[in-house]
């Protein structure tokens, strides 16, 4: 496992933690358990991928930890803040100040330029962006020449790079990605994943990403496997092959059980 000295010194610190987290839809006969007492830590300066077959609860887990969705029981902490007790307004503030997001699609506002999209979370908070940090981020994702462009004038890959820059620009405690490469071709996807990994290695950022693509997961430091709302496995320093192998076992298990 290759970690930067900076990340190594912080591996013990936890950026987000779910404890006995459950999410149950409906009641009685029609009850569906999306998350079943999940406990997981996301360490600072670590790139974690959440994987699992469709319906395993991987997106739900991310939504609950990121403060986008409510949960039935258990607890979620972002840094020192317990999410369960927060009202919508406080949750919104928390997302704005402590969390960055990258979605699969519909990531950007078409009416804003690339730069305006990048600084949007800070604009919402009414904060001035840290100019130096902003330049670093823009430099890293290679958007220097296209800051004045509108999303419609950018390719899909470029749009997603703007989204990555936006997530990084406000220096959140943790960035969540929901299939961030799902709509991209493999080359653009590789670029975006490269930026995410670099942000962890070089800038000490914490990233949690939901994906179903073993190649994408291979960019992470650690992979957490979910099935039927439970964490069933974990893998450090994954490769595409090892992840694929692990995923195949779900299929077999799914068929035999």
């Amino acid at each position: 496992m290759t970690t930067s000295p900076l990340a190594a010194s912080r591996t013990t610190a936890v950026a987000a933690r779910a404890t006995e987290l459950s999410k149950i839809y409906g009641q009685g006969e029609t009850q569906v358990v999306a998350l079943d007492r999940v406990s997981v830590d996301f360490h600072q300066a670590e790139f974690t991928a959440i994987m699992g077959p469709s319906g395993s609860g991987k997106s739900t887990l991310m939504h609950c930890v990121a403060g986008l969705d409510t949960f039935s029981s258990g607890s979620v902490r972002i840094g020192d803040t317990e999410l369960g007790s927060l009202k919508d307004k406080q949750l919104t503030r928390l997302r704005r100040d402590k969390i960055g997001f990258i979605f699969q699609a519909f990531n950007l506002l078409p009416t804003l330029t690339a730069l305006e999209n990048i600084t949007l979370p800070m604009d919402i908070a009414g904060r001035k962006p840290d100019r130096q940090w902003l330049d670093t981020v823009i430099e890293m994702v290679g958007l220097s020449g296209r800051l004045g462009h509108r999303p419609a004038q950018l390719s899909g890959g470029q749009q997603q790079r703007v989204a990555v820059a936006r997530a990084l620009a406000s220096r959140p405690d943790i960035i969540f990605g929901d299939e961030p490469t799902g709509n991209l071709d493999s080359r653009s996807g590789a670029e975006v994943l490269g930026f995410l990994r670099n942000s962890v290695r070089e800038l000490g950022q914490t990233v949690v990403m939901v994906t179903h693509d073993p190649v994408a997961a291979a960019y992470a430091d650690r992979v957490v496997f979910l099935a039927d709302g439970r964490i069933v496995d974990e893998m450090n320093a994954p490769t595409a092959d090892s992840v694929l192998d692990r995923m195949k076992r779900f299929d077999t298990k799914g068929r035999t059980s």
Partner: protein
Amino acid sequence: MFRTALRNVLAHKARLLMTVLAVMLGVAFVSGTLVFTNTISDAYQQSSAKGFDQVDVAVRPESGEDTGDTVGRTPDLTEAQLRTSAKVPGAASAIGVVDGFTALADKDGKLIGGGFQSQGGNYWGTDDPRYPLKEGRAPHGAREVAIDSQTARRAGYAVGDTVRMSVDGPVLEPRITGVFTTDDGNVAAGGSLALFDTPTAQKLFGKAGTYDEIDVKAAPGTSQTALKAALDRALPRATTETTTGERLADDQAELISSQMSGLKQGLLVFAGIALFVSTFIIANTFTMLVAQRTKELALLRAVGASRRQVTRSVLIEAFVVGTVAGVSGLVAGIGIGAGLRSLMGGLGATVPDGPLVVSPGTVATALVVGVFVTMLAAWLPGRRAAKIPPVAAMSSVHAKATTKSLVLRNTLGALFSAAGVTVVLYATTLSGSDGQAPMGFGAVLLIIGVFILTPLLSRPLIAAAAPLLRAFGVSGRLARQNSVRNPRRTAATASALMIGLTLITGMTVMAGSLQKSIDKMASAAIRADYVVSMANGNELSPGVERKLKDTDGVTTTSPLRNAPSRIDGRTEYLTGVNGSAIGDLTDLKVDDGSFTVGGDRVVVDQDTADSHGWKAGSAFTVHYEDGKAQRLTVAGVYEGNELIQGIMLDTAALTPHQSDPADMQVMVKTSGGASGATKDRLEKALGSNPAIRVQSKEDLSEEIAQMFTLMLNMLYGLLAMAVIVAVLGVINTLAMSVFERSQEIGMLRAIGLERRSVKRMVRLESLVISLFGGVLGIGLGVFFGWAAGELLGTRMATYELVLPWARMAAFLALAAAVGVLAALWPARRAARLNMLQAIKAE
């Protein structure tokens, strides 16, 4: 396809509700107007038929053409003619009718029935068949009167009470001896009717021994035409005219329907405006519905539906919406019709009772208008739907409707606007009525032009609001950008509001300017402290002036005494004034000669002088109504206005030739000037007469202002319809925008935009669109108001443009209120949006 269309109608209930409401309002207005006017004219016809029950043939004085150099009143019917009529073969009885204005005061001394509906007449004998007595007995002698039961009930009078009334000036205080019932339309509508015995009525109305009309009742078995023929043989053809009761009722009915048709057309114009505005909203709604259903429609095409079928499905949807809106609009319209009637009755207008009339024509019109307008508005969106390529069903992203360039649209709009402005400007150079048609045409061109140009105008105008929006941070910036995102949609939404506000502002500017000008006209030329006149514009007896002259503190008075005359073979009205005082009481600009009236010296206004070719020093011969002639000299030519004009001569010269002198007004100057105490003194001197108004200049201005305020308020009420429809349009647009941008809003919420800010963003967008429409409308309205004023100014010397800034600010505030109100629901919806569903990728 029909089932698909029907399912679609049901699937988008909330959105279609707006569309239905928009059409419904227009249809409701149209059918309400029809129901109202039908009901009213029907009731009138019924009541007029009833009113002529007692009349088989009416004998009236022949209104002969006056010829030669004599002028005079048409001769009234004589006692002898009444006796002759009663004895004609086939006549059962004949009644002599005398009527005139009779003001009646309630117990507080206030005039009952607004002045114009204060009627008086004679009670025939002891048992007049026209007026069955409910209580008491017939009036007899000068100190007795009978009043109608409605007035008695309203004012709380009973038999035995003394009532204050006046016919032409002096106050009368007769005792009520009887209360009668009548089906007189005026009385039904809140007017009053007071009846004296015949000799008293004849004396009071200045018709001693004569009648205004003789009503003859036919004996059983005699037809109206036979009776008419008999009367024609017995009475002199030259001075009398006979009409059958049936004919009278028919004439009345015809008169009523022609009077109603003006009102009907006026109301229908407003209904048309409401419908016109609705058309934009319907078109807008269907455009958006089609845009949202792109994938669905593409799928239909992919599985084999033809273009025509797709168009048809949209049109069927429009048909269903139109039918629902037409039916509900009709129901609402019947309500409006009933409401309008009681509203007008409440305002004291003439509205007889009768059943609500919903004719088949009304029903058909409501349905046709509802369906036709909706389908027309859905036609273009329907065609656009057909052009969606089947492949759009396959792509994961919504196939964006090709945004055609606005170049063609802008060019067309610019051409229309330029042509409109040119025609309107050209029309202002024409005089009076010549300019009306070109101005109307130009106005329509300009409105269409601006409407076409709104997408172009939206960018700079909304950009101008950017500094204000910046104060609201991210919400403000996003709102600004969202509002220019789809210029066509913004334009269509704003246009709906624009049209309403254009009309409202235009009317206000015109009414304000007119009010100022009339005010100036009425008061600027007057130096008198008070003007005394009759409440209904009738004439005052000369006794009123004499009384005023003798009142303490009054320095000078002058009547404005009207008298017809013939000059150069033409009828001219002379105004008799107090020659020595008129110069102090009026302030008229003299262009030529001097303002001296006395003896044979008269002053003439410019227009009259021009028409006769007179100058100061010219002499002419006047023939008075008694046939005598006099040579008069023009001493001066003054600039007249609508209130003071014509030939002014001294009453000393005029009155000897008049059999029945009467004054239009009396002008009064007092030593103390106008004050409350002076006014009280004057009113007291006239016996606190309910029929006489004592008005200072301020009172005159106020009266004029009130008249205009009432008129404007009625117009505002009617135009409110267009504004309500515009509100629905804004709600619709916003709701669709929120729906279309749900993913964006979800993302914004995810990255930390609070619910409050989301709401504010939608609200600001609504505000921006509404204010945009408001600014355009107010701007256009001012332009039209100015242009119409230019046209009027050619006919009205005192015309002056008045820009009602406070009102205009209020209209802008109204536009803002429309924006805020319309955003309530869409903003709530945006804030409540399920974030997770919104950001979930397709």
